[in-house]
């Protein structure tokens, strides 16, 4: 096609010696067109971010560099452009937004100054005109009170607002190409929907070509015109969005799409009548009330009540700051609450002393979100798993033997026992984390976002493992997640939390089919690519 804004020809990016493969990507051909959104999708380590950075010459040179191929933009080959030429293009002709709106802005400069910087670098406009333009930009990304935003520092803005500021900065000089590297991954689902809409609107308005890097097929379904799938550095499939999402040809694409949890409820189950394992009554937790000159106190939990029966999985769903993780920490007594009762099999742990609590500890175990930070890097896997039982009086020899059996249970080779955590992938580490939690034979498993840090295919495996273990060991589970698709797949009942309150609790099929609270409805509406899977199923059934 002739209207290509940017053409990547046969791009290869070399990794330093000792990396898992010599080339991060090889033989990548891609065309980006004006007014179109091209999604580059791939799992972590696929090299998708490096492609984005190579375009702007932002690879961490000299270790990672373009080894071969051309990046053609406005008649020049960016892979061979001089630093000064690249600087003239960056920010003006090609702009970029990043994943982490928290860290992508300089914490010491005001928002206004950082947007203004782009104009200062590339234009000779006088100060007053630049200022007017910045205000105009802040308005165009729908930031409230532009005049105040101008003087605000990044930490005074929410994640979504920061990402809006980043977009304003990127669009300041109406670039021909916008590169967005996972711009919504760090955001809440409702905020994500707004940001996606904003990128879509602005891109249509200006006819900008967009290269959108993501790992999320839902996002692809919402925003993409065309899609390219990257697997370990190889571009395995590309085509129009309808084509790739609807009739994927390559086995990898098919597997990826199949791994995305369906936004659909399981069949309604008869309500459980098993005894309660966990009852939280009127739990209150307040943060941040500091003495003398203290700031405002925030209520993290406001008279929260939840109940969980033996053998059941209760999902805690909500956005960041809704109090779902606080509640998870409260029921494990990793944190004390200000008020209320937390009954584990009828015994209130909220007021127990340390020594009273100790025997209770093993009955409730936790699986954490971050598979990198939650395992001691200096302990062997077998010791990580056996430590809990040994503390509770099991013979060390027996505990280690059992640890090896647990490894088999979570689908790891027994040889893993003698290795260290850093030798494993994220999914494997999460399996170790699950084995560690199971080692104490808990009655209640509290899983705090156990799959959020994992790729979608790995996520599916870990979810299957959790479901399998739950039925086999008759566990009860409190499952904290921000991802409604995941919640629908694993939970029997779902509690929706907003601003420290539980706004709705219902069986999974009921909450999906007939959400009552407006916030629940908003959450469902904001799920990216909410209905492409439905459409897909209908199409296949029709044909």
């Amino acid at each position, binding site marked *: 096609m002739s209207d290509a804004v940017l053409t990547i020809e046969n791009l290869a990016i070399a990794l330093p010696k000792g990396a898992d493969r010599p080339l991060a990507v090889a033989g990548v051909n891609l065309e980006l067109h004006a007014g179109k959104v091209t999604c580059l999708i791939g799992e972590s380590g696929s090299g998708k971010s490096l492609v984005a950075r190579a375009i*702007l010459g*932002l690879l961490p040179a000299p270790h990672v560099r373009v080894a071969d191929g051309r990046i053609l933009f406005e008649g020049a080959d960016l892979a061979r452009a001089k630093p000064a030429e*690249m*600087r*003239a*293009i*960056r*920010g*003006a002709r090609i*702009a*970029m937004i*990043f994943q*982490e709106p928290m*860290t*992508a*802005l*300089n*914490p*010491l*400069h005001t928002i206004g100054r950082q947007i203004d*910087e*782009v104009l200062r*670098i*590339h234009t000779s406009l006088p100060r007053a005109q630049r200022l007017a333009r910045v205000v105009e930009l802040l308005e165009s990304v729908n930031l409230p009170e532009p005049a105040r935003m101008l003087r605000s*520092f990044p*930490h005074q803005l929410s994640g979504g607002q920061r990402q809006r500021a*980043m977009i304003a*900065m990127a669009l300041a000089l109406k670039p021909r190409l916008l590169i967005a590297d996972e711009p919504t991954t760090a955001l809440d689902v409702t905020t994500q929907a707004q940001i996606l809409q904003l990128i879509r609107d602005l891109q249509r308005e200006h006819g900008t070509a967009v290269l959108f890097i993501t790992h999320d097929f839902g996002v692809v379904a919402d925003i993409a015109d065309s899609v390219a799938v990257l697997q370990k550095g190889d571009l395995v499939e590309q085509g129009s969005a309808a084509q790739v999402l609807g009739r994927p040809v390559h086995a990898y694409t098919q597997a990826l799409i199949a791994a995305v949890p369906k936004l659909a409820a399981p069949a309604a189950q008869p309500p459980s009548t098993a005894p309660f394992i966990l009852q939280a009554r009127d739990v209150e937790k307040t943060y941040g009330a500091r003495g*003398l*000159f203290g*700031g405002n106190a925030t209520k993290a939990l406001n008279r929260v009540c939840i109940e969980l029966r033996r053998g059941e999985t209760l999902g805690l769903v909500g956005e960041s700051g809704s109090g779902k993780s606080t509640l998870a920490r409260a029921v494990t007594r990793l944190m004390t609450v200000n008020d209320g009762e937390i009954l584990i099999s009828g015994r209130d742990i909220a007021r127990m002393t340390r020594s009273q609590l100790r025997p209770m500890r093993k009955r409730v175990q936790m699986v954490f979100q971050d598979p990198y930070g939650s395992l001691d890097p200096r302990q062997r896997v077998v010791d990580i798993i056996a430590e809990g039982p040994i503390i509770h009086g099991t013979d060390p020899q027996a505990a280690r033997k059992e640890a090896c059996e647990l490894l088999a249970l979570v689908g790891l080779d027994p040889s893993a026992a003698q290795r260290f955590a850093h030798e494993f992938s994220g999914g494997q580490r999460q399996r170790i984390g699950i084995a560690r939690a199971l080692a104490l034979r808990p009655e209640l498993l509290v899983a705090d976002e156990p799959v959020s840090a994992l790729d979608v295919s790995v996520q599916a495996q870990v979810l299957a493992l959790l479901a399998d273990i739950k039925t086999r060991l008759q566990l009860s589970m409190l499952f904290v997640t921000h991802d409604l698709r995941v919640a629908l797949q694993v939970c029997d009942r779902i509690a929706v939390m907003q601003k420290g309150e539980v706004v709705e609790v219902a069986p999974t099929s009921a909450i999906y089919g007939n959400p009552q609270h407006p916030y629940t409805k908003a959450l469902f509406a904001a799920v990216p690519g909410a209905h492409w899977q439905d459409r897909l199923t209908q199409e296949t059934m029709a044909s």
Partner: protein
Amino acid sequence: MRLARYLGYRLLLAVPVILGIIVLNFFLIHAAPGDAASVLAGESGAATPEYMALLRHKFGLDQPLSTQFAVYLLNMAHLDLGYSFRNDSPVLELILDRLGPTLLLMLTAFVVAVLLGSLLGVLAASGRNGWRDNLISLASLVAYATPGFWLGLMMIVVFAINLAWLPTSGLDTVGADNEGWDEVIDIARHLVMPATALSLFYLALYARVMRASMLEQTGMDYVTTARAKGQTERRIIFGHVLRNALLTVVTMAGVQAGNLIGGSIVVETVFGWPGIGTLAFNALQSRDLNLLLGIFFVSACLVVVVNLIVDLVYVTLDPRIEI
């Protein structure tokens, strides 16, 4: 306005701190054996027990400790630091006399260490792993490992005695009676070596901290953002990275402020600098407890004030600090 309120709050907090220091100092010093009377008696060669008793009575040393403490607190409340029998003059007067030179030495050493250390750190970080970086790292390692007093003595040998570029000791040339600029230059020449000896350790420390901090900040996302805007490398370093990296150094500078006074005792003694350090050393030697307590009190106040200033600087540098 909020800054003023914060300042008031911090000054309020300083009161119990200083009070605690006063109490602690008093009891620590009285736990040490010997008093001014025994030292005076020892120096005079022979003293009858009656004479010692008379001295003790005159100094108030024969009172019970609790009474001495009460009297001390009462005097402190009037900012009366007592009388140095050894020097035959009020403690406050002695200290104020010596405060100027000490502040001059301290501030010079402090400013030189922070500014030059940060600058070297920036230079080392921007030429990472090049000859500049290696040279600075090596030099800072040497400076790090060199004790201040030894460095002082060596400088005297080399620059004052062998090369005769700089005066060996003192604050100014005795008997020169310089006026105006001549006096300033004279004092500055006397200041060079003690200030170097006092600042070199921290200078090296800041160079290393600043280098590490710069390198850490260079890897941050906002630097990539700035690059993606088309900003030049030089502007990225000075416009974005430097201020973020400085925060670490400022934190450390607060710690250094407390150590400067302790360090100045040694350096002032080596260079015969007529400051509080020499005064403290002599007071300690002669068991002049009143004077020693007074010096402790004044140094404590200095540390509190310097820390407050450092915190204020931090607040103005970092908008994220809520005050």
